[in-house]
Each structure stands twice: as C-alpha cells, then as structure tokens.
C-alpha cells in the first residue's frame, strides 16, 4: 500500500519542481549513536559507536573510541574488541533463537552526561522458506523476488534483505523491506513480492547466471518500528501523506540514538534464468 502512496507522491513530484536552498539550522546537543546487531549466523558480530553532529556536518560521523563493550545472553558474556576506531567486534560465534541479548557499553568519556549505556533485544523464532522465484515486472522495470513460505499464526515482523552474487543490495537501511503480518497472518505467501532489483541501477541489474539470495529475518516489533521510522524520516516527506516529522525511536538507554538488534537469518537462493 505504501508503494501506491509513494507513486501518487511521485506523480505530484513529477508535475512540481525542486530547488536546493540554503537554510540556517541550529545545532542540538551531542548524543551517542549505537549501531549493533547479533544474528544466528556464526560470524563476528559488530557494534559501531558514533556521535551525532550538526545537520550540515558534511563528514562521516565522529567515532567513539576506547569504550568497553560487552554482550550477554542469559548464560554467557562476550567481550567485544575494538578492531577499527569505533568498531567493536565479538569473536566468531552464533546467537541462539529465543534468547534475550543485552549490550553493555562503558565509555571512556561521558557523552551528554552519561558513560554507561545498555540495550536489550530478543532473538525471535523464524519460519522456513520453501522457495523463491524471480519475476520481471515491466511497468516498474524491476526484478521481483517472490516468496513461497507458510506464515505462522503468531504476530510476526519480518525484515527482508537480498543480495546479488553474494553482494548485499540492501546495504542501506532504507532499502530493506520490513513488514508486519497484519494483512496476511497465517496464510501461505503464494509468491508475494518481498525484494526488488532495479533494472536501471548497474549494481542491481540481473543477468542470466547471477546468483540471487533472499535473507529473511524475524525481528521484534520495536526494531520493525525503528526501521519504519528511519525509513520515513529519511524518505521524501510530503504535506499530503507524511505526518509531522518526529525523532526515530531507539532501544539504547540514557538518551542515546540508534539500535541494538538481535534476529535470526534464513537464506534462500536462485539462479537468474535466460528469459525475463
């Protein structure tokens, strides 16, 4: 449904004009920003610590170095090592479905009056992907990944990422597809479109023989809201459909921004055929 609304906005935008303008903006106080996740893949899981800046800062966000970062589930504590400035990694390990993970951060220097920050998230159970298929949609000039899977009767939130030849296409958070099951709870997915490769973009264009992979994750409602909010606040804002701008939520304590998420990944792949 959102796509339709976007389409309407797009058609109004097409008949209107845009122009870059200079605006003077005040600067608010600095906050810690956390981007962290743990999945059930056996890998080194990463937590990145940065700071907020003024809006027209025009450089990568300043990193927060020298912090003590640890992750715990109900049984173990994992200490993270700073591998690059502000980038903290676990040893190779896999998260376990059903466990609640807690992230603890001790900063070397206070930000906004706090040096200790914490966040928790639960790794939700995930369903089984039967298969995926590719389908070319002329009108939109996109390849659609169609999903075949049984949706369980519980209330679930999904995040879909997809890759081409092992390279993630949804590498910015506004490209991932997050959906609740409100409109299809408990049904068979029947080939609903969950991911899209845009023909006009060089890095997404598919050729025969390309390997396409869909990554399906079950996420918590809070994280789903976070992703929707960040997508809304970074997407095109129009007086017709957008509500008033509002800050993106967070699950980090003490007023820090960002999110620490725990979720499982399920993979399904297919090879691009010779015909569209």
């Amino acid at each position, binding site marked *: 449904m959102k796509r339709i609304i976007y389409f*309407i906005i*797009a*058609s*109004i*935008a*097409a*008949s*209107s*004009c*845009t*122009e*870059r*303008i200079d*605006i003077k903006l*005040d*600067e*608010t106080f600095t*906050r810690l*920003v956390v*981007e962290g996740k743990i999945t059930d893949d056996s890998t080194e899981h990463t937590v990145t610590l*940065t700071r*907020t*800046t*003024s*809006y027209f800062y*025009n*450089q990568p*966000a300043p990193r927060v170095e020298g912090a003590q970062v640890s992750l715990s589930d109900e049984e173990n504590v994992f200490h993270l090592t700073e591998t690059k400035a502000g980038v903290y990694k676990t040893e190779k390990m896999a998260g376990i479905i059903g466990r609640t993970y807690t992230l603890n951060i001790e900063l070397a220097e206070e930000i906004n009056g706090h040096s200790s920050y914490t966040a928790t998230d639960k790794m939700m159970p995930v369903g089984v992907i039967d298969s995926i298929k590719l389908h070319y949609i002329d*009108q939109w000039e996109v390849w659609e990944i169609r999903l075949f899977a049984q949706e369980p009767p519980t209330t679930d939130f999904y995040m879909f990422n997809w890759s081409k030849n092992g390279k993630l296409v949804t590498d*910015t*958070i*506004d490209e991932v597809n997050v959906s609740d099951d409100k*409109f*299809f709870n*408990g*049904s*068979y997915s*029947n*080939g*609903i479109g969950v991911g899209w490769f845009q023909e006009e973009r060089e890095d997404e264009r598919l050729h025969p023989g390309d390997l396409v992979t869909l990554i399906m994750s079950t996420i918590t409602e809070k994280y789903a*809201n976070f992703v929707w*909010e*960040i997508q*809304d606040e*970074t997407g095109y*804002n*129009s*007086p*017709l*459909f*957008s*509500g*008033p*701008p*509002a*800050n*993106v*939520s967070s699950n980090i304590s003490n007023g820090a921004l*960002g*999110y620490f998420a725990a979720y499982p990944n399920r993979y399904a792949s297919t090879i691009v055929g010779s015909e569209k």
Partner: protein
Amino acid sequence: MLLVVVGMFWQTGARADNKEISNKKTISGHIKDAESGEDLIGATIYVDEIQSGTVTNLYGFYSISLEPGKYTLRFSYVGYQIVEKEINLKQNISLNIELHPVRKELEEVVITGEAKNTNVTKAEMSVTRMDVKTIKQIPALMGEVDVIKAIQLLPGVQTAAEGSSGFSVRGGSIDQNLILLDEAVVYNPSHLMGFFSVFNNDAIKDVKLYKGDIPAAYGGRLSSLLDVRMKDGNMKRFSGTGGIGTISSRFTFEGPLEKDKASFLISGRRTYADIFLAFSNDEELQGNKIYFYDLNAKVNYNINENNRIYASFYYGKDIFKNDDFGIGWGNETETIRWNHLFSKKLFSNFTLIRSVFDYYLGIPEGEANSFRWDATLRDYSLKADFNYYPNSHNKIKFGLISTFHNFQPGSAVGLGAASFFTAYSVPKNYALESGIYLNNEQSIGKRWKLKYGLRFSLFNNIGKGTIYNYNNEFVKIDSTVYPSGEIFNTYSGLEPRLGITYLLNEKSSVKASYSRNYQYIHLASNSTAGTPLDVWFPSSPNIKPQIGDQFALGYFRNFRGNTIETSVEAYYKFNQHAIDFKDHAELLLNKEFEGELRFGEAWSYGLEFLVEMQFEKLNGWVGYTLSKSMRKIPEINFGKEYQSPYDRPHDISLVLNYQINKRWLLGANWVYMTGQPVTFPTGRFEYGNLIAPVYSNRNEYRLPDYHRLDLSVTLKGKEKPGRKWHSEWNFSVYNAYGRKNPWVINFEQEPDAPSKTFAESTYLFGIVPSITYNFHF
C-alpha cells in the same frame, strides 16, 4: 446563564402576546429574482415609517408584523433594482416580490439598489456572504473558479497548504469546519488532491461562511460553518450556463417544469484526463488516468402558497488509476426539503438528508498482492427548523436535528485466488448525534440588537460496536463488544450562543459575541494538506468530544454611502480535548488507531482587519490578519506548547476587480502569509549507511514566507438587444511573478557524496496561465 436565556425568551413571549392583543397584522411572502425566479437569500425589507425592517431567510421568505396603518416598504438586494410598495395594512397580507437584476448597460434608466449598511446593523459578526458573481471574478488556478479558494482569501481563513482545499478558520483544524451543501455535510470538499473543490460554481446560488458565532441551528464543529446553497433552477425559462476551460468543461441546464411553479437544474463538470501527468516526460506517468467529475441536480415544486418542496442531489468522484492499481474517492449527498407555512408568522422547514463519503484503493485481481481497501462514512439526518416572527422586534428560530452516523473506517481484503492477503477490517461503528435549539434575534430600541440562543447537543455511541480499552500508556489491554442497538456511551453539552450589537450611528456599530460548540466526530489525518484517505471517527469511551469557546469583539464602520465597509474583529478561542497524533502515528487501516491519538488543549487569538469596496468600476477587498494558534498536549513535544500547523501570524489578502468598460474586466489578487511552522533537523546521526535527522522541537522553524499574485482579464462578447447568447473569454495567470513558494522542504543526502546533506525545496507551481470560455443563454 441558562436562566437568563430562558428569562429573555419568556419576556419576549409575554411581550409578543401583549402586542398580539393590540391587533398587529402580518405582511409575509417570498422575494425572488424576476428573471430566474430564484429565491433571494438575505434580501432586505425596510419599512420607512418604523425605520426598521427584516431580511429574507434561507428560502427567500420574510414576515413582518406591524400595527394597522399605511406603510412604505422598500425591497432591496445588492445588484438588484429596488422595489417600493405603498401598503395600507388592514389585515394579514401575502406579498411576493420579484426584483430585477441591475444590468450595467441599462444603468442610466434605473435606480440601482443602493449599498446597504446591513453589515453594520445586523446582529451577527464574523460572517461573510459571498456572491457567486464575486467568486467568478477572482483569478483562479487553471481558470477553475472555486468557492473554497475564494473564501481562503478572507481574513481569518488560512489555506492548509499550497493548492489545498483544506482550510483553517481562526487557527482551528481542517476537520473543525462544517461544510454543507444544501444542508448535507460534505466530508471531503477536495478534488485532485485538493487543487480544486467539489463545488461547481455554476450550480451554486449562495455561499456564507461563519468564522465563529455559528448560529444555534448548526453544531458539531468548532471552527466554522460554510453554508453552500445550490440554485433552485429557473422558474421562468430554460437557460444554460457553461464553460470550456483548460482542465475541465462544465454545463448547467435549468428551466421550469411548470412556469412559476416547478423548476429543475442539472449541472455537470468533468476534467480532461491526465492534465498534470501529460506534462511529465516520464512515459509511465503518462499512462495513468486521473480525472474527476461532478453532478449536481435539483428540482423544486411550489405546491401552493404554504407548501414547497425541494430535492437536491450531488455526486462527485475522483479516479486515479492504471493497470496496476487504482484509487477513487468521492462524496454523495441527497437532500429533500419541505417548506411549510403554519401561519404568516411561522415558517417551517423539514429536511431529510443522506450524505456519503467513501474511497477505495486497490490492486486488480490476479497478483499475489491483489487487494481492495474500502472506507465509507454514511450519514442519515432528519431536521426540523422553525422561524417564528412574533413582531417586528423579535425573530425566533427553533428546531431539532438528529443524525445517524455509520462509520466503516477501513477494510482491506485480498482479491482473487492468487492473493495472499487475508481480510483485515477496522470494526464498524455507529453513532447518533442530535441537537435541539432555540434562538432569538431581538432589537431593543433603535440601537441595540441582541441574539441569544441555546443549543443542546447529545451524542450516543450505538452497538454493534467494538471498543478497545487502553492503559495509561495508550497500549491496548483488551476489547469490549457491545450488542446491536445498545447505547453504550453518551455525551451531551449545552452550547450557548450570544451576540450583541450596539449601533453608534447609521454608519458604525460595536458588536460582541460568545459561542460554545461541541464536536463529536473528528478526522484522523496526519496530513496538513488534506488527503482523500480521510478517516472520520466518532467520540467514544476513549475519546471525549472537543469543546470550543470563542469570544469576539468587533467594530464596524461604513464610509461614502456604504460603498466602503470596514471592520476590525478581535477573537480568542479555546479548545478543550483538542486532538493531535502521537509521533509516527499509524491512522489508516489500524484497528487500534484510537491508541494513536493524544489529547490536550489548543488556543488561538487574533485581530482581523477588512476593508471592502463596492464602487462603480472598482470592487474588492483588502484583509489583514494578525494571529497566533497554539497547542499543548502532554505527550507531544515533551509536553511543551507548540505552534499549530496553521499558525500564520501575518496574513494579507488583496482582491480587486476593475471594470474598464462594458466588455473588459480586470481581476487581481495578491496574498502574503508568514511561512508555515515546520520541524527541521538540528542534528543528524548515522545508522545502516544512512544519515537520519535529529529534530528540533515541534514546529519550531518556518517555511519561507508565502506570497503570490494572480491576474485575470475577462472579455465579454458584444451584447446586442434581443441576443440570448452571452459569452466571455477569461485569461488568467496563477502565480504571475513565478514565486517559488515551498510546498515542503526535504533534507537529503548527496547521492555521490553520502556524508553531504542538503535542503531541497519542492514548489508546486511556476507561472500557470489558462484560458476559459464561458457562455450563458
């Protein structure tokens, strides 16, 4: 308060009875246009001997009771020739009067209706009546003259957003306007995302906007009443009106079914498809269908002197679709009215109304994502209104109305076997909204005029209904299902309406008013501009009715034989249980949307200056408003007060028409407004390879100021005696100096250098020229 009002009625009644004994006789009748037989609303009857008079009601009816004797009566209406009658009043008489419109080209032979000082003397304030003729002279976007765009040029009325049909009156929300078309509520007055309104000018007779001081006969909205009346249809002869414009064509045909007894009117308008999209370079966009149409129809029948019936109908739809999806929305209204005279002094009107607003959105059958989403609001109303004219000093109105609301806020269902969507419905609900009122307009001596009334409103939620119960954090705990027919929740309110006018002299007066209104149904829309995806919802155990109090004080002064009318009005409004929405609210297709609402208070105040000119060649007005509109809601903006989206401290509008000669007419309007309050980022953070904003407090910034000039030239075809066909060409330019007024400012990342962010303004219109050909026969 109540006692005072009742006391005054009692006194009035008593005095009326005393006078009754003194043998007063009544003159009553209808005042009509001599050429079309249309009733004239608000025409003046002036009795020289008592230096007082009355005006016709919404059905052109008047009644005045006087001691027996000889009188000179003057009947007048702006733009019409005056009629004088000498009367020897011995018994009750019926006197129907037909007034002839003034034609410019005949000027030298007739006495024109002199400008009146009714704006000074009337016991009402904060009201503007707009002539359809005036509206037609205002330059318009794409030449599409529009009632709503015209009233947005009045002081105290703000456009919700560029091009929008949504409007805010004295800082109120866009859902606080009661918009009536022949008494039926029009829930969404916009076409094509709001660029045009649903009112087809050719089918309209009279438009009146109450910015406060809403008559006791009306209720249910806090901010304003926009009362639009359709033409009744020509009683004398068949005639047609039409136009071919840049984006639409329209045609109206009207005439007698039986001369001077029954008439009809039928009117249609349709846009040419794809007007905006055709300009697009994108072929995909060109493949889309986008259009709207309107149909108005009306019949009326004079059964006899004491009975008349009217039936009116409106149907309008917007369609926006291609092979992959479609969206459509529209209003439908039907009104059946019966005017009945119980006596020369007691006029009544009984009304049956049906009003529907609905929309759908969908993807056609055959795909996994095929679905259809529908939402509907249906109203059925019964209304009885009485006007009682006991004597020349009092005009009593009373009546009642009851409306049954049937809300279907939204249901979506998968289409076809391939669809993967299951059904999802927001529960339907039902409500009954009723009101009973009594009001008197009383003149005391030559200088004082009082208007006092009371409305009692009652609201019932009726089963079958599902109500979700929420905790203090607005999280759903459980739900309660009420059986069919059960009244499970009731609200009621006493709404006093008071007005006082003191005439300083013939040319100036001071007026004051107070009114309280209750609003029981509200609009769930986060959009400032207004979208077709409106969800109206009733008050419920979770949602209290909104209550609005308004105080106003005004000074009215006319100059140069009433050709210049000026006024200054000050107002203060306070709104209890004001509704706003939580951050990132989800209002569409959400069973628990009541949990997305937040309640607090809103207030606004302002000063409105208006100068209206009505000269031989030049007419128009200049308005200036200085105002403030604020809200405070505990869960929004950290509980601090914030500027409402309609807060526009300075607002100037200038509307001028200049008649060069019999054939050429120039029109110009210029508007200036402080920019709309907005929330801008005051910081940013990185997440998921994206830069996200950290915002200022709500509405702490403003868009750049808005200003725009529109121009038009009308060239009338040559008039020849006996020629029936009259035509004119209208050339207009919207936004004549090409001001790039920001519609929205977005903050974006540089695609090639993602760390760089910039601000981008979207403006909707450059210079928009248009040509319209209008005809009339």
